[in-house]
């Protein structure tokens, strides 16, 4: 060994010893400093050409410590994230409460349905009505309160993110300064351990907020990057930038949140670039490049976990609201309301597909029928309106209806005509326009059908035999006989009749299969002035109504009034040429029916296209309503005056202008209108009309029941089978239907406010936060729906059969019972916030929501515990500072594995044993 080498070896040892002394002293001084790690000096043999060359500080030790440190920092991020998640989940669970306990959602829901149960038993008890509204309000308030609190938690998470950003920025500035100090100490060969501790402490703090990648320079200075590689600490300064939400409404209204960015600066402090580490956006649409740290935990809470639970709350609120409203709209309170104001904003000329029927009834405040102003209806009271959505046509096809068409239909019915034309058991026969304007088309014409109302106990069978049209000079310009008036009613061409000797049975052969069935009654026109079957059957005997006795392919059988004679079997059929076989219109007892389904009439107006008006005269026959009667049909003519050059005529009814034959005209004692259907603005002011139309204006449907003198009535709606089916016709893509009935769709009689943004001004639809009881019910709980319409006694003869007039009886609890059952009825819940689509009752869904949150809370706590244990274990391991002995670690791995396997065996064996023991004990 050379002298130089020997001296150098000694110096090396001395340096090490001095450094060791310094380290020991430093350890003592910092024993109680948080984050300070005990420093050790590691020595290893320093060899030069295989010869001992003293000792040196072993950099390897630091390297492994660094890796352990990285592991700890990674766990720091995980622990911080898990801690935030667990903490927030615990708060969420406290908000929702535990099933069955006071102040939990299911308790409030149960109270509401219990109060409805009480109401079902005594529907007219004021205290019970008030109790329902009170519990409904509490339920709405609590659900809304929970939703608000959840949104507030999102706001808090957002504020916490902002706090985290400030804290990270402080540490980034600190690390920038430490890097400079470490580089300097490295160059000057000054001690760096204390700086390293500060550095590690700062890194750990940053890591607690967001997971980072760390790169150590040879000097010990560090570069920090986000997990997506965006620099946080390097040669240039970088800072996080975030503008938090300004308030709760930004979350409630789903406003886009600002991005979290890393802003980079040059040496002069000028901004050079911005990189998103969390994108701008709304809830789940927000992207993040973070995978750990409290900021990511808070973002996940803010944008995913809390919105998911809110989505479940929204679905629950919507489920309760829609199910209750659907039933509530099917009935009325007692006494019924005088006015029903919709809360759905509709556009007058926007068409949707509808089906089914709904009934609107005007009644007195005590629920009894309003007297009809027509003497012919004295036994029935004022006729209700049956809205037949299947056949109503606004010009876009049957069932494709605008709000305007529905409004017109209601007003047409309740604007009682100055005269009604009755025939037999029909009390009113009106002509209905199928054109929107007159004259229609390039060749002037008018298409119409009839509106027929039957108030008897028997069905009515009606057919039209003749139509003629006269101009304003009384000159006939067209008739059905001459072809100017054409009929689209179904008819078949008869090719021949087959007769059987000495039998009344006649086989009618048609050119196409007739759409008739055994038992149907059909009408045959007179086939002509000849006799058949060797002169024994007169043509007149083949005219009129006959009952179908058999159907076979292109023929059917009837019985005529006289038997054919002098014919022999197999006689050749007699060809009679083309004959019309008409189907008649059936109007069921108590119904009002448009004849359109059985055909319309088109009058050619070209005979005098400039006429001021046209008188349309229709000859109508009705078969005797009593099937046991042998009385012949009754026939009458009714004339309707249709004015030329008018608009907005579609579905307009024309009243009888004149009549003859068996037609009976009946005039009201005074002109009446009982319901005014209007479209109003948010303040209840009717929108302006042009040519009787609201055009394309938007408003809310309002039904007000009073007459022209101001006398108020009540209005009750029966949803019937009505259903709004969206917009499928000519709509790409189709708009999904609400499947709501007429009243529910227009939200005329809701218990819970709709939360429709257009209606309420809320920016968000259907949110639990906006769940509320309708103001009119808070003001007047007696408006709560408890009962529904029932067939009424005839006002003038209570003992007579009930005849299609409806009444709202006091004590009727049908709707209250249905409302009470909503809580236990199965209903569909859409998948929300991690819960799948399901069909269950409301309490079941609440249980599912609570269980979901409880499970997530337990999982979050468990994750936090696991992360903490691992973190503590790593710290404990790192603090042990015995160094890493690879052999020992590998031995430990084996040992842990064998202990783990043994414990697994313990678990398995003891589980089996204990199960067996408990089975024996039980």
């Amino acid at each position, binding site marked *: 060994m050379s002298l130089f080498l020997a001296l150098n070896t000694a110096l090396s040892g001395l340096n090490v010893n001095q450094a060791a002394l310094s380290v020991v002293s430093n350890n003592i001084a910092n024993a109680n400093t948080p984050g300070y790690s005990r420093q050790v000096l590691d020595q290893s043999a320093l060899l030069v050409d295989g010869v001992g060359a003293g000792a040196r500080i072993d950099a390897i030790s630091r390297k*492994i410590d660094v890796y352990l440190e990285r592991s700890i920092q990674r766990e720091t991020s995980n622990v911080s994230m898990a801690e935030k998640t667990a903490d927030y989940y615990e708060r969420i669970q406290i908000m929702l409460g535990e099933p069955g306990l006071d102040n939990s959602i299911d308790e409030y829901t149960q109270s509401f349905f219990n109060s409805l149960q009480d109401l079902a038993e005594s529907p007219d008890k004021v205290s019970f009505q008030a109790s329902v509204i009170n519990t409904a309000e509490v339920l709405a308030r609590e659900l809304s309160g929970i939703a608000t609190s959840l949104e507030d938690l999102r706001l808090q998470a957002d504020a916490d993110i902002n706090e985290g950003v400030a804290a990270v920025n402080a540490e980034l500035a600190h690390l920038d300064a430490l890097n400079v100090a470490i580089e300097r100490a490295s160059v000057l060969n000054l001690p760096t351990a204390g700086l390293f501790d500060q550095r590690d402490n700062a890194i750990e703090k940053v890591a607690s907020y967001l997971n980072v990648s760390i790169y150590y320079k040879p000097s010990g200075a560090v570069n920090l990057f986000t997990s997506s590689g965006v620099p946080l600490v390097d040669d240039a300064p970088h800072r996080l930038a975030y503008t938090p939400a300004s308030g709760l409404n930004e979350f409630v209204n789903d406003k886009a949140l600002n991005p979290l960015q890393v802003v980079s600066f040059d040496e002069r402090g000028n901004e050079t670039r911005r990189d998103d580490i969390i994108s701008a956006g709304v809830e789940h649409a927000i992207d993040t490049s973070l995978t750990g740290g409290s900021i990511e935990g808070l973002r996940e809470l803010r944008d995913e976990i809390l919105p998911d639970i809110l989505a479940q709350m929204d679905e629950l609120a919507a489920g309760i609201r829609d199910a209750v409203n659907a039933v509530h709209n099917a009935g009325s309170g007692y006494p019924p309301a005088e006015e029903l104001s919709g809360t759905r904003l509709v556009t007058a000329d926007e068409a949707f597909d509808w089906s089914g029927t709904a009934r609107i009834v005007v009644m007195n405040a005590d629920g009894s029928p309003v007297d009809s102003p027509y003497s012919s209806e004295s036994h029935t009271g004022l006729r209700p309106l049956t809205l037949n959505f299947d056949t109503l046509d606004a010009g876009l096809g049957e069932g494709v209806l605008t709000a305007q068409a529905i409004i017109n239909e209601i007003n047409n019915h309740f604007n009682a005509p100055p005269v009604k034309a009755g025939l037999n058991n029909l009390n009113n026969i009106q002509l209905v326009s199928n054109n929107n304007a007159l004259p229609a088309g390039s060749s002037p014409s008018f298409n119409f059908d009839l509106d027929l109302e039957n108030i008897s106990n028997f069905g009515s069978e009606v057919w039209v035999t003749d139509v003629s049209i006269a101009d304003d000079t009384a000159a006939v310009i067209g008739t059905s006989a001459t072809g100017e008036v054409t009929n689209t009613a179904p008819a078949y061409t008869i090719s021949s009749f087959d007769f059987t000797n000495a039998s009344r049975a006649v086989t009618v052969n048609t050119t196409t299969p007739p759409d008739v069935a055994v038992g149907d009654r059909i009408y045959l026109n007179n086939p002509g002035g000849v006799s058949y079957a060797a002169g024994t059957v007169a043509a007149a005997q083949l005219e009129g109504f006959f009952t179908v006795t058999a159907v076979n392919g292109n023929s059917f059988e009837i019985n005529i009034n006289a038997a054919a004679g002098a014919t022999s079997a197999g006689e050749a059929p007699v060809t009679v040429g083309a004959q019309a076989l008409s189907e008649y219109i059936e109007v069921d007892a108590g119904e009002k029916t448009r004849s359109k389904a059985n055909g319309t009439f088109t009058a050619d107006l070209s005979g005098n296209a400039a006429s001021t008006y046209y008188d349309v005269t229709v000859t109508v026959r009705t078969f005797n309503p009593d099937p046991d009667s042998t009385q012949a049909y009754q026939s009458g003519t009714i004339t309707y005056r249709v004015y030329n050059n008018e608009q907005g005529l579609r579905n307009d009814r024309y009243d009888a202008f004149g009549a003859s034959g068996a037609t009976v005209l009946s005039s009201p004692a005074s002109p009446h209108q009982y319901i005014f259907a209007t479209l109003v603005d948010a303040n209840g002011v009717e929108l302006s009309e042009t040519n009787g139309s609201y055009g394309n204006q938007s408003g809310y449907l309002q039904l007000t029941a009073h007459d022209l003198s101001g006398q108020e009535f009540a209005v009750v709606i029966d949803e019937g089978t009505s259903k709004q089916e969206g917009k499928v016709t000519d709509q790409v893509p189709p708009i999904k239907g609400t499947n709501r009935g007429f009243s529910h769709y227009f939200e005329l009689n809701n218990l819970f406010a709709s939360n429709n943004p257009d209606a309420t001004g809320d920016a968000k639809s259907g949110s639990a936060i906006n769940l509320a009881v309708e103001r009119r019910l808070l003001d007047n709980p007696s408006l709560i729906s408890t009962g529904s319409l029932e067939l009424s006694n005839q006002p003038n003869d209570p003992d007579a059969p009930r005849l299609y007039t409806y009444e709202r009886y006091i004590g009727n609890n049908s709707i209250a019972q249905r409302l009470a059952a909503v809580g236990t009825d199965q209903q569909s819940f859409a998948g929300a916030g991690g819960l799948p689509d399901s069909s269950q009752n409301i309490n079941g869904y609440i249980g599912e929501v609570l269980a979901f949150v409880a499970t997530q809370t337990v999982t979050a706590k468990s994750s936090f515990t696991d992360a903490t244990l*691992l973190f503590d274990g790593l710290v404990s391991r790192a603090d042990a500072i015995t160094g*890493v002995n*690879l052999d020992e*670690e590998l031995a430990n*791995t084996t040992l842990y594995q064998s*202990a783990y396997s043994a414990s697994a*065996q313990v678990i398995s064996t003891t589980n089996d044993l204990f199960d*067996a023991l408990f089975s*024996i004990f039980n």
Partner: protein
Amino acid sequence: MSSHVIIKNSAVIDGALATNREQDQLDALEQGFKGVINFEQVRVEDIITLTARLAQVLAAEADFLEKMQVGKIADLQKEKIMLTNALALIKKQLPQDESFLSTLEAEQVQSLKEVITVFNVILEENYTRLNTARMVNQRVVEAVTEVVREHTQQDAYDDKGKMNSAASESMPISLNKKI
């Protein structure tokens, strides 16, 4: 609650052991139960004794793990497995032993239930500690592996001018240096 606290304060476990066995029998437990446990005829007190002893072993293991006294848990594994096997034998015998149910006394059943309750708490704690120790150990080994890999691989240009990762000499850490 840590297992350390549980075992120190577990009157149930201590009582169960003291009631059912004398010290010499407890000593015999560690020698394979010869002459102590009658596996031909299952007795409740045997189950209580074995379960309580196993609880003690598991608690001790959890304590050592918490203190990172890894070497000491090796000594416990043999007894842990032996006790488990004994309980497994009893479980196997149980359905065949009709006299077991008839000899049961309410007090014994109650004692057994109490021991099982405490045992389950200790078992859970043991599992958590053991699992954590395994994960920490895994991280340390990963850290060492990373260092070794980093140290033994150097980027260099090869004779064709391409960047290659060339392995360098192994590092002293493989010689089990204390670092």
